[in-house]
């Protein structure tokens, strides 16, 4: 019995290791897949808008200790070990719309006001470098210029409406709400909701497309309504400038850069063309590919550690079988002598002991698989070096929503014993049983009956 326990533990270890390796490989593969699909999606979006020049006001980040008399967390605050980022919001005056529209070659200028709610939620985000508590705005208000030609021509509004209707020209005092938010608040089409003290009727629910927080927890409304309810009358935070043709994008870009050079230099406004966005995506792709390569090389290292450990486990298992069977043969010398005396050949005695060794380790194999299946996550954690694809760099927050979408919750690989591994383990058990009992069985078969009889 003790033997089966010892053997099954060593087999459990043996199956936990490949389980862990497989889990690590799978988690890296998942990561690569998610990364590739995000890249593809983003690339498609960029390619669809070659004539678009984006002018966004940026939020200048400042490092500061949180004020001691802070009544509530400021919007968009990352909190970690006492330090915090506070965002300083910048806005453009609506007059900019007229100014930019007058530039030669500009077809349309679509203004937006994107404003975070003052209500926040606390979220714990697990990253390879530790847990972060992040307080995020509960929802994001997007004010859209509800001009029917804009709605038709450019994707200024969400398209996937699950209930009610979309916003249209002339709408006022109504809003379009994301599915997430509607679930969160338990409101539906026709209900009245209050945004910063102003009442709005919900006219439609849309399904959030991407992972972008603006989309998953957003409300869309008339630009003027948004400006009034957030107290930013006459201000916009983003302008989508559409050129008449791709050929004039560069000249428009140059003129905007010249006009607002001071704001752009102060990083209050960012202007980006198709080429800029593509370049940005490519640089992100490069840095991510590097990270994934790191992860893959770590997995490869793990694999070699695992190989060594499996060899040790195999050796240990067959040694256990060897010693147990040697002991058994010794214990049963007299029985072997008797069997040979009454006419059993050396071969049949040998095969009987081999069979016994195989059955013993097969039984241990079954028990070991049981233990291994339960204990694999723990055992593989102990036995294998931890996989951390984001090794030395904390990237989760550095880049945009895209990066965090890929990185968050990525690397907690948990070992699962697959049927393939079980079969492999059973096969190994049989093989080890045979190998380990080969010598003892041979010794049993060579025992001279006359000597065996004297043995007590």
């Amino acid at each position, binding site marked *: 019995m003790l033997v089966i326990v010892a053997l099954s533990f060593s087999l459990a270890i043996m199956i936990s290791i490949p389980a862990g390796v497989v889990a690590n490989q799978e988690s890296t593969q998942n990561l690569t897949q998610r990364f590739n699909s995000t890249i593809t999606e983003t690339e498609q979006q960029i390619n669809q808008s070659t004539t678009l020049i984006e002018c966004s006001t940026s939020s200048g980040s400042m490092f500061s200790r949180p004020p001691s008399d802070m009544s509530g967390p400021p919007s968009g605050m990352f909190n970690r070990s006492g330090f915090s980022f506070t965002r300083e919001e910048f806005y453009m005056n609506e007059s900019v719309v007229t100014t930019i529209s007058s530039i030669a070659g500009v077809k349309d200028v679509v203004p937006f006001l994107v404003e975070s709610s003052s209500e926040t939620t606390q979220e714990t985000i697990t990253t390879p470098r530790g847990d972060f508590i992040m307080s995020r705005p509960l929802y994001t208000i997007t004010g859209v210029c509800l001009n029917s030609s804009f709605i038709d021509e450019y994707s200024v509004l969400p398209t996937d409406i699950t209930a009610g209707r979309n916003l249209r020209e002339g709408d006022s005092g109504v809003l379009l709400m994301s599915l997430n938010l509607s679930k969160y608040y338990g409101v539906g089409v026709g209900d009245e909701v209050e945004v910063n003290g102003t009442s709005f009727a919900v006219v439609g629910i849309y399904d959030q497309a991407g992972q972008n927080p603006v989309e998953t927890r957003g409300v869309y409304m008339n630009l003027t309504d948004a400006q009034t309810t957030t107290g930013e009358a006459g201000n916009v935070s983003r302008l989508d400038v559409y050129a008449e043709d791709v050929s004039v994008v560069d000249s428009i870009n140059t003129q905007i850069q010249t006009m607002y050079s001071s704001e752009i230099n102060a990083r209050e406004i960012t202007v980006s063309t198709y080429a800029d966005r593509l370049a940005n995506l490519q640089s992100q792709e490069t840095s991510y590919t590097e990270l994934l390569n790191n992860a893959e090389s770590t997995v490869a290292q793990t694999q070699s550690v695992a190989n060594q450990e499996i060899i040790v486990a195999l050796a240990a298992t067959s040694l256990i079988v060897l010693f147990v069977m040697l002991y058994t043969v010794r214990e049963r010398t*007299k*029985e072997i*002598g*008797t*069997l*040979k*005396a*009454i*006419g*059993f*050949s*050396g071969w*049949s005695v040998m095969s009987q002991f081999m069979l016994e060794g195989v059955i013993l380790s097969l039984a241990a194999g079954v028990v070991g698989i049981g233990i291994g299946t339960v204990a694999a996550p723990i055992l593989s954690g102990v036995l294998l070096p931890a996989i951390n694809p984001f090794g030395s760099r904390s990237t989760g927050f550095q880049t945009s929503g895209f990066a965090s979408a890929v990185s968050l919750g990525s690397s907690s690989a948990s070992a699962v014993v697959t049927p393939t591994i079980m079969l492999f383990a059973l096969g190994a058990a049989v093989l080890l049983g045979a190998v380990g009992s080969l010598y003892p069985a041979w010794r049993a078969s060579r025992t*001279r*009956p*006359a000597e065996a*009889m004297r043995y007590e």
Partner: protein
Amino acid sequence: MSEAVSEAVLKTDKVTKVYTMGKREVRALSDLNLQVNKGEFVAIMGPSGSGKTTLLNVLGCLDKPTAGKVVLDGVDVSKLPERELYKIRRNKIGFIFQTFNLLPYLSACENVELPMETTKRPKNERRQRARELLKLVGLSGREDHRPQRLSAGEQQRVAIARAMANDPAIILADEPTGNLDTENKYEVIRLLANLNINRGTTIVIVSHDSQVASHTERMLLLRDGKIAKEKQGLHLVKKKLMCPYCGSKIQPNDERCPSCKKRL
């Protein structure tokens, strides 16, 4: 009973066995000549260290003689390699041990079947023969008992049935009564005697117990690896169905002489 007519089942020619213990050589058997004829019941006697067990091992192909010849049922077994010897042991010899040597995890019936295991006999035939043999040794109804649930005498009877399994040319018994009390001792020796009379089985036993030995047909006294003395046993008289003590007529299965009441 003329020697010339009798067919020799077992014959040795100047058998010598030397054990090397460290630097010392021990001569256990020295130029021993022996003949056992078909249907004989022979006892080999001698003090401990006289070479009784060594002789039996050599006769039973459990050990090879250092020199000399052992001819068993017409085959010179001293020249056979191990891969042939097991067939001789299986088909020509039945072994009975002092300590019974039954396999503890097998039933009485399975123990008796064991020597037939490597033969070509079909399974049900083996089972049937094992049951018949157990009935012959008086153990019908106990076929499925494990050895630990049988008395010492019953265990030895299972071992006798096992020795008979492949219808051997000769049964070799090493101190078959050594571990038995008086009652079981006579039970076993009578069983062997009856097998010899009723079935004509050739039996050689080794014993240092002269009482047991006296129930055989011929006693060989071994000393210093040689046969020192030979005398007739009670069994020879019993074979002639005459009480060895008072000379009155007896039946083969009688436990005691009907007239003088002495134990046979």
